[in-house]
Structure formats: structure tokens, C-alpha cells
């Protein structure tokens, strides 16, 4: 199946099996460094990417669903200004994920920030605590994850105010 999509800002035309998981396409066909494992849909949470701006587990997305979509992996996200906000939150709180889940945790936090950055609603703690269970890694406990999200959200909102 021929698929046109945009990965990390590059327009690509791929010929792949229509049901091949996105995680395998990124790892095998495109050599994306930030994805290291393929759990085969076991919900390990370590294959997070942003698909059209929303965090998804790439092992659950088949090739035919990425037609004409925009995919951002941690490789390109780590060069963006948005990443700096999350990096600063890690430094300010002293909580940093391990190297196995750093990419996925960061992209998940970015997705949460995008949900909350443009409105004044208080953060829904139970939702964030539930989200923290998505990535199966013991390096960050749910309360620390919540702390990082809160810190990152403050930094992001301040930046948005300055930009406005």
C-alpha cells in the first residue's frame, strides 16, 4: 500500500503493508532513534508519538490510518521550543524520567499541556494520575508526574502570555 504522510516535517511516500504498525514503520523503514522497542500492542507505552498533534501509542496505529497525517516523533520534538518548557519543568522539580521512557513521558506531557494551555481550567488531577499509568516504567511515580505536569503548565502559560 502506498501512503503519503509527513514525518518530523518531511513529506514521505511509503510503500508498506497496510496493517504494519506505525512503531515498526518508524523503527524499520525510517530509522527513528527515539523508538527502541516494539511491544506488539501490549500497551507498554514506550512508543508514544504525536499523530496530528495528539499523543498516541504508535504500536496501535496501522499504516493505513496514517495516510495524509502529520507525525512528530521525539527526534524532532526535542529540537522544538515546546520541549524546552518540559525540560525546564524537569530541572525545576528535580524529577527526570529514565532514558527508556524519557521520550514517551515527554510527549505525553506535551499532549496534556496542549489540552490545558489555552484555557484557565484547573488541572484535573485524577485524569493526569490516570494518564501517568499509561507508560509502564517505575522511574516516575504518579504524584511526581503530576508535579512535573503542573510545573510545565505554569512555564508554558507564562510563555504564551509573553508571546501574546
Amino acid at each position, binding site marked *: *500500500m*502506498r501512503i503519503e504522510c509527513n514525518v518530523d516535517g518531511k513529506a514521505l511516500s511509503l*510503500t*508498506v*503493508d*497496510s*496493517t*504494519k*504498525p506505525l512503531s*515498526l514503520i518508524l523503527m524499520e523503514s525510517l530509522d527513528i532513534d527515539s523508538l527502541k522497542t516494539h511491544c*506488539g*500492542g*501490549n*500497551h507498554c507505552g514506550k512508543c508514544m508519538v504525536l499523530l496530528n498533534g*495528539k*499523543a*498516541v*501509542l504508535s*504500536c*496501535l*496505529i*496501522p499504516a*493505513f*490510518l496514517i495516510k495524509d497525517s502529520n507525525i512528530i516523533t521525539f527526534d524532532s520534538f526535542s529540537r522544538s521550543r515546546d520541549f524546552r518548557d518540559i525540560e525546564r519543568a524537569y530541572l525545576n522539580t528535580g524529577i527526570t524520567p529514565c532514558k527508556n521512557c524519557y521520550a514517551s513521558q515527554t510527549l*505525553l506531557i506535551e*499532549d496534556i499541556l496542549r489540552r490545558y494551555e489555552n484555557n484557565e481550567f484547573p488541572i484535573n488531577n485524577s*485524569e493526569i494520575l*490516570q*494518564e501517568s*499509568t*499509561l507508560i509502564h516504567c517505575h522511574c516516575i511515580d504518579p504524584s511526581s508526574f503530576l508535579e512535573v505536569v503542573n510545573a510545565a503548565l505554569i512555564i508554558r502559560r507564562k510563555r504564551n502570555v509573553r508571546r501574546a
Partner: protein
Amino acid sequence: MYAELRSPNVHEPHNLAEFTNTIISYKDNATSLWAGGTYIMSQKDFYPSKSANVEIISLQNIEELKHFQRNDRFAEFGSMVSLSKIQSVGALLLPKVLIKTIDKTATTTIRNRITIGGCLCTPSFRTPLASTLMLLDANVEVRYLKKRMHSKWLGISRIYDKNGGLALLPNALLSRIRIPIQQFDYQYFNAAGSPLREANTSVSLAAVAKMEQSSISTGKMIITIPNKGFCQSRDIDNIFSSLQFPCDEGHLSSFFSYIITYIRENLGEIDQLQEVRLKGMLSEMINELNQKSLSV
């Protein structure tokens, strides 16, 4: 080249008429309807697929399946509406027990991908969402092929057989789900374990009740054992409705023993962890009802 030749064909109809044409064209081939894909992609042997000549019909682009409407009596969702969407649009409208069931189904990131139709049509395990919808007397519209395409409304329990297995015809499409808007004095839902990854140890309990002072006037409960089936019985509902609150440990134990005996007789032996989890949930529910009766 190799990938292109071996790859399953994917059809993406844009409306129900196109879907019908596709189904009629490929009625003799192996077809697979694709909703959100979370369940299918989680199967161990999904990729690389052993059967290459499968026709996949993706329902993602069918506009009719993404609609939502409501009136005073019911809310109606197309089967391709995501659980996140149902939760956000129905937060103030739908019964709390349903909102809590959706909330416990998965994290927001996963719920964005899961559709209500896909969640009801998982063939190898039973989801708590299906049981909560049974409890609320929801109806579903099923479209099926018999010379031409027909559609009919069924009570949701009729799309499952007595063991909770999916009993839809091959290529049948669940197109709409209608949920009655009802008021209950007490609603309870709790689930332990993931039905997708730990079907053998997971269990959930949902209950609704209308109360009069310290007793239940109408009470219904349903237990989901993902690897065995749904446990819903008029006898259990009658015992539940006849409980007087505050209810002591003795009554709770005999009620629990009755439920376990019923499950063993009708669904078979369940895992010990499921039994312990179920007892915990039942005890939590009775405690809440005790508190409610004492605060009246």
C-alpha cells in the same frame, strides 16, 4: 514491492451506501470491520498477518456513524463516536454509572482511539461498558446483509449469546447506540484489572437503584467477568432490592455466597483473585448504601 503485493486491501467507505456496496461486493471474501483498532492491534498475532487476502473495511470515514443526538428521553450515539467524546458531551446528561465506566475503561490517550461500537464488538472478551449499557437498557441498531441491507433495533443484551460471546451475523454493522436518560438515587461502578490485558483476573461490578428511605425500591446489578461472561439475574436483583439498610456482615456474606454460587453454576469456575476483587467491590457498595441510608 513485496509489502504492497501481500498487504490486505483496505476499503474506506465515506457513507453507509458505499459501505453497503463494499459489503455486497466482498460478501464471499474474509472481511474485517475496523473501528478504532485498539483491540485488533493488541492481538499478539496481528502483524505480520498469516492471511494476506483479508479485506479490511475501515469505518473511520463514515459520517453517519459519528453523529450524536439527544432529546428528553434518550441520547443516541453513532458507533464510531470515541469514548472521550461521549464522556465530554455526556458528562451532564448521561447516567453517572456510564461516565464512571468510560472513565475506568482506559486513560484519556487510549480513550481518544476507542470507539463505542468497537468496544461493544470485541469477540474474545466482555467489556464493562457493554454490561453497564445492559444495566441501563440501551438499544443498538444493527445493519446486516440478507440479499439486501436490513436494519433493526435490538436490546443490547441480544447481540450477545448466553455466555456473553458476540452473536452478530458476519459482516453485521452496529451503527447506533441509544441510551435512555433515567434518574437513579444510587449508582455504583467499579472495575479491577484490565479486561484487555488481564481478562483472567479482571472483574467489574455495576449497579443502579431507586431508593425509598432505608430500602431499595428498584435495584439492578450486573457483574462482568471478561473471560466468562456477564452475570445478570432477576434473582440477584430481587435479593439486592430486598436488602434493608444498614445491612450487616451476615447479610452481605450470604448475598455474596449466592452470587458466587450463581456464577459457578452459570458461567463456570472463576479465578480466586476475581472472587476476592468481587467481594471487595460488593462490600464497598453495601458500605456506601449503608452510609446513604444513615444520612437520610
